[in-house]
């Protein structure tokens, strides 16, 4: 199932230029869309079954339909923060095929009546930001952006805004705050961005891949797109496979493959033909799966049924040479470092969990601390302002639950190692107190 849409011509040299992109039929869909009624565009998006590719998987067409009608300042924001560990698909899209993102944004902006569009790109993507800026300049030159787009009487301005390096700015409302020039902290919802987003105006905010998919959907038709993949997970999805696999990289798949097909098929299996210890199916914030779950169908609802999520489509594979404790510490520390600090459970919970795991790692804990971790994760989940807290609690809790024996073994080993080291230290150190004998000898 290697239907290619977004990656169809991805390796064609010069695709990032307007010339080559046009030669490949680029912007034909924008021309077509701008001749359509806005309603029918939104309907087409709904019919395609396209779900948000950033992580939450919310139906894109439905989201677009929430944007109020009427004349007011409306905004389109592209979330190009791509900060979820293990995710690097948007980077390739923006680097090699920026014009299809711009085309997708022209169509989306027209569909919801937005005339200002922003691409919020993570600060580390310097090259990609420059490519996008060049592509936008080209598009402006060609009358595809700016006043009177394609002579259709619609205005659309587009800017690239570079982030300053915070995971939380990938959260849509944190992104909006950062874009407005504030500290990137998530906002309370409701109100949702569709009603009060950027500068309090109605805002459609979507991931790079979601917006890039739009011209391809129009090209093959909403129905054909919906026909790809499986029920409720239609279309193609870019996945980023990383970790201990032979062929890491981005792949475009039709949803509905199994984990095994991806890891052992596309990615060529595990390095040195080791066993899978665990794998994250949808970025580091998804609950982990084990080697027993390899046959799970890779689609939104199927993964949800397996107690995890498709997320951003980033598969991280960890083989059996690694300790689950180290993976847990690494994961928790990342979220502790990235917690914005606004709400209590996330701020305190991520920090506490990390401290607990670090104690386990160095063997200064007891199995009871594993219960405390589970309980702390439980206290975080569902009680936070945004999903960052859950993003740590879910994978960590899943590791502690699924690998409890390994955690306990590690604890025992690390503890006895510590004891042995202490004993050795005691035996090699000169006695400090000589006890009663020494006192007696003074007389």
């Amino acid at each position, binding site marked *: 199932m290697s239907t290619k849409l977004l990656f169809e011509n991805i390796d064609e040299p010069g695709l990032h230029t307007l010339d080559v992109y046009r030669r490949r039929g680029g912007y034909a869909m924008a021309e077509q869309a701008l001749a359509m009624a806005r309603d029918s565009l939104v309907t087409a998006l709904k019919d395609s079954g396209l779900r948000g590719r950033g992580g939450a998987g919310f139906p894109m067409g439905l989201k677009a339909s929430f944007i109020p009608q009427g004349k007011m300042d409306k905004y389109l924001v592209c979330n190009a923060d791509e900060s979820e560990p293990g995710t690097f698909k948007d980077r390739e899209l923006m680097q090699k095929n920026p014009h299809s993102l711009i085309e997708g944004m022209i169509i989306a902006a027209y569909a919801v009546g937005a005339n200002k569009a922003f691409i919020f790109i993570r600060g580390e993507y310097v090259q990609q930001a420059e490519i996008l800026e060049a592509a936008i300049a080209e598009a402006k030159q060609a009358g595809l952006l700016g006043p009177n787009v394609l002579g259709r009487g619609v205005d659309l301005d587009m800017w690239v805004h570079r982030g300053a390096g*915070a995971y939380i700015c990938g959260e849509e409302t944190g992104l909006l705050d950062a874009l407005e020039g504030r*500290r990137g902290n998530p906002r*309370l919802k409701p109100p949702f961005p569709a009603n009060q987003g950027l500068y309090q105006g109605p805002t459609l905010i979507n991931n790079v891949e979601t917006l890039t998919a739009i011209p391809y959907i129009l090209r093959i038709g909403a129905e054909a797109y919906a026909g790809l993949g499986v029920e409720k997970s239609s279309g193609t999805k870019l996945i980023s496979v990383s970790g201990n696999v032979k062929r890491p990289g981005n792949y475009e798949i039709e949803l509905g493959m199994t984990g095994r097909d991806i890891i052992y098929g596309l990615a060529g299996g595990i390095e040195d033909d080791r066993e899978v210890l665990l794998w994250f199916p949808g970025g580091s914030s998804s609950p982990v799966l084990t080697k027993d779950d390899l046959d799970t169908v890779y689609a939104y609802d199927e993964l949800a049924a397996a107690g995890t999520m498709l997320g951003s489509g980033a598969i991280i594979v960890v083989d059996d040479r690694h300790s689950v404790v180290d993976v847990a510490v690494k994961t928790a520390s990342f979220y*502790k*470092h*990235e*917690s*914005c*600090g*606004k*709400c*209590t*459970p996330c*701020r*305190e*919970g*991520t*920090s*506490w969990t990390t*401290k*607990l795991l670090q*104690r386990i790692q160095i063997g200064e804990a007891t199995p009871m601390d594993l219960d*405390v971790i589970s*309980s702390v994760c439980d*206290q975080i989940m*569902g*009680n*936070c*302002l945004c999903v960052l807290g859950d993003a740590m609690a879910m994978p960590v809790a899943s590791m502690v639950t699924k690998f409890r024996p390994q955690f306990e073994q590690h604890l025992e080993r690390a503890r006895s190692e510590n004891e042995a080291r202490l004993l050795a230290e005691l035996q090699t150190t000169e006695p400090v107190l000589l006890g009663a004998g020494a006192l007696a000898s003074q007389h």
Partner: protein
Amino acid sequence: MPRPELQQITFTVDGREIEAPAGTMLADAAKLGDVDIPVFCYEPKLGAPVGACRMCLVEIEGIPKLQTACSTPVRDGMVVDTESARVKAAQESVVEFLLLNHPLDCPVCDKGGECPLQDISFGWGRGTSRFQEPKRHFQKPVELSPLIAIDRERCILCYRCVRFSQEVSEDYQLVLNERGAATYVGTFDGHPYVAPFSGNIIELCPVGALTSQAYRFRARPWDIEQSGSVCTMCPGQCNISYTVRDDRVMRVLSRDNEDVDDGWLCDRGRFAYQSTYVDERITQPLVREAGELTPVSWDRAIAEASKLLQGSVGQVGALAGGSTSNEEGWLLRRLMTETLESRDFDSRPSGVVSVGLQAALDAPEAQATVPDLEWAHAVLVLDTEPVDDMPVLDLRLRKGVRRNGLRLAVASSRPSSLDPNAELSVRFAPGAGEAFVCALDAAIGGVGDVTGLCQAAGADPEAVGALGRMLREAGEDVVVVWGERLTHGLGDGPARNADNAARALLKLSGRLGLLDGRTGAGLLQVPSGGNSRGLREIGFLPNVAPGFSDPAAVGRGSRQIAQAAIDGEIRALYLLHADPVASFPDRAVWEQALGAASGVIAHAAFLTDGVREHATVVFPSEAGAEKEGTITHPDGRLQRLRPAVRRQGDARPAWQTLTQLLTSLGGESTALTSMMVTSELAEAVPFYAGITHDEIGGFGVRWQDRDAAASFPAGDTGPFTLDAPVAAPAVNGALRLGSFRSVWASPEVEHAPALKFLSPKQRAELNPDDAAERGIRHGQPVRVSAGGAAVHAVAHLRTTSPRGSVFLETGIGARSADVLRDDRDEAGGLPTVSVELVGSEVAAG
């Protein structure tokens, strides 16, 4: 935006049916049914909820996830559970999380005993902690400012202080630094958080992270009592509560009154109580003997004073300062009219407005209230700087703009701190307020010579036109907040242009429909003194009898009293909490006047310039916390001063002293208590009729809301004809002199140890281009002179300062702008001054 109408709905919390206005946040609405939902970050005064602390999570039927009660508006039929196992678990976890890094130093923490974190931990926490790791550490405590100490270990990061700075006072200084568990509150670059309203964050803090440097370690909650009163230091008359320990004021807290202060205080109101207990305070009567003020007994002082007054019958002038209560003003008025045969008394520093116009401006139909500012369609701030003149109004206007879409316009000479919030800011030449109002009236009415009047006012005709259009088109609810200085007048007669400015203001108000009694629209005056309105209404003006009735005879106003003293027509001066040398315009004239008088009796708390040099008898004034009486807010609210502590030293209430003088001079008084004086004056002022301390209560009562308001006399109704206004002087190489009085210019600030550092130094605010022409750079010493007089100042360049003007501070003693004010031309026009560089820079350059 007009106030929304509230619809009552019914919802259920924990099985109790509760009625609440629709849209109320659940955390507030539950209280109406006596259900307490714990909160930390939620504080409605700070604006929209942020849902950060997660303490208020509750279960709502039909919603799978727990919801924050602080951000969920109640709807009809909503069913809420605050006691389910899930909710309890969430509450316990949030408390546990908050206490992870919170030090257990309650026994030495100022907040201990009045701490929401303690209360909530006790009420909703688990009681134990499973945290074994080391806590977060910070250096502690550190100075956030000279007024506030910050202990970052105690901070639970609820954001309240940061939100106050960002969204209420809009000084934008406090921010959160770092991220996650390492987050801490501070200023961006570590500079001290100094701002007019900074002290409010101490009260907002739900833990002991922000403490008052002045109160720190002075008392514990079980040592103290709270005593409610009203601050008299400015017309804002914020409701306050004195914290008293062992009969001594230890701190001042706000006493939230939505109709007056919205629960905020400025730092002057919060910290100036310290001046009650300084050595400089006068606490016993003084009499000048051989040129020196010498402590004497009360009997002696009263005898001296009555001897002096007795010998000057018919030749006594009296002034009442802003902190004078209605009772004190009333008794001094009686003393003057009944025993001293004089009508030469005034409560304004300058200008006399005729009684009919005064009544028209103060009529109930024309009166806007403080909350009206928040909900009006548009507000014009005219010739006043709220943050200096009535600070708490500044916050109210910002709130209106930020939350209710209020359209704000500012018309002033000096750039205003509200300019960034205003849709329109219009400048006019310093002192040309009268001409400006005439121009604006013409612009609104679309009649007359707008361009010519604008030229007289030194204003841009286009800007005035735009302002006129905005006010006309904004909607019905327009409020004009105008500064009393607009009617301070220039000339010496019964100030022709004081009346003209009042007429112009009434005329334009009439055009905007502000005089028709519409609720939500009208005028709100920012007077020069804290209780100016009360003093006006009891008739402490030379041309007004109690209740704005016509007096039998008209006396002299402030300026004329000074002149009469110089001319020898007035022999004795009675200064009730007023020192014209220190705080009135025309300092030189007043120095001369006080010097010429054969006796000056003063009620004073501090030896300010005029009192120190010229007073012959000084009675100690009571401090705010010692005083009893009533005062009247600029919107007509009678408020009650209640003594919180015993008077210091030998001080006595001024009403008592005045009663004693009254009887010793042959007058009649049956008043044995301050309250009896209140009843006496309530009888004399028809629209105060029957008002009692009980009725005034803790939050005051607006007399306009009582039946007696019907007896308010009819004022002038127009049509008003305007004279040609006094034109701003042409600037031929000179600069127009403007002045302003900083919120920090007061003897209380000067003498309160905590506030002393804010006591203003003279500075000359200049436009950079005007400065460049004179070779002046920012921060250099300059000399501002006119005629023979000069003031030394530090050049303060502001790009927003209008060209052709220089602004100096007033009310700061011998360096005050008042020194220059008497130098005006023959016609009583506006003064110009020259500014030049002084000192080493000149030599070096």
